């Protein structure tokens, strides 16, 4: 009972936040709702006994990624007229309708679907007796997924270097003639 209450309240808020992320005119508001979304999702994870993922979700997603978004938004400090307007033309409307319908169909299928799959051994009780969620996830991560884990660290290294190289302000580059022509064209 309380589980369902929890789920429905969280789910409702998540849905609301998701809609607000996409529809807010102001990117900062979007980012705030994104944080809310992530926070609520972390709550859902925690309710599913995935404490480690919940903590990581807040630590990395809310604590780092969205902060980065916020930073960039403030750094760019867009003029109000540059805050985007949704342009609606005929093809857009068609695609919008099609997408919504397609997702509605998928959602409908999911409501009545029956899950199938091979059950593993790590049920909630097994996890608790084996030393808790963090411990068991760690064991899986550092044994079965050791190499992917190392690769992921390599990926992060690459991303750090790439970000620095891309965003570095080495010498002021103004738009070339060709770029200006294209911009004027577009």
């Amino acid at each position, binding site marked *: 009972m309380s*589980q369902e209450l929890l*789920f429905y309240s969280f789910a409702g808020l*998540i*849905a609301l936040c*998701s809609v607000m*992320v*996409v529809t807010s005119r102001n*990117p900062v508001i*979007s980012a705030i709702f994104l944080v809310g979304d*992530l926070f609520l999702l972390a709550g*859902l994870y925690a309710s*599913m*006994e*995935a404490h480690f*993922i919940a903590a*990581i*979700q807040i630590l990395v*997603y809310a604590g780092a990624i969205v902060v*980065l*978004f916020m930073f*960039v938004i403030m750094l*760019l400090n*867009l003029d109000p007229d*540059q*805050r*985007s*307007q*949704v*342009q609606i033309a005929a093809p857009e409307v068609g695609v*919008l309708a099609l*997408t*919504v319908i397609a*997702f509605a169909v*998928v*959602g409908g299928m*999911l*409501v009545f*679907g029956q*899950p199938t*799959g091979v*059950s*593993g051994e790590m*049920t*909630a009780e097994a*996890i608790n007796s084996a030393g808790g969620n963090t411990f068991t*996830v760690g064991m899986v991560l550092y044994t*079965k*997924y050791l190499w*992917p884990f190392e690769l*992921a660290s390599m*990926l*992060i290294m690459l*991303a750090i270097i790439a970000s620095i190289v*891309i*965003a570095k*302000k080495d010498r002021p580059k*103004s738009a070339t003639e060709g*770029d200006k022509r294209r*911009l004027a064209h*577009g």
Partner: protein
Amino acid sequence: MVSINHYLVLATFMFLCGTLGVLFRRNLLLVLMSIELMLNSVNLVFVSGSRLLGNLDGQVMVFFIITVAACEAGVGLAMVIALFRRYGTVDTNFLRILRG
């Protein structure tokens, strides 16, 4: 008891929001945020699946997705900044360098 269907439907809805954000928002930052939304919906599916099947691989996968998302956000935002420096805008209406 909350069944997995609940989570899946919620994830589908989040994914829909993300998709529409990518398709219709003209601000590159918003596009990136929408992508984060989509990734999160997938994470939700993984975690709920992990609980349903009693298999921790799903949670490990979420861990990796978060890693990749961090990289994606870092590089993506760096590109947004570079674009803004060069063209003075992050509105995709004005960024049509690949126009044929």
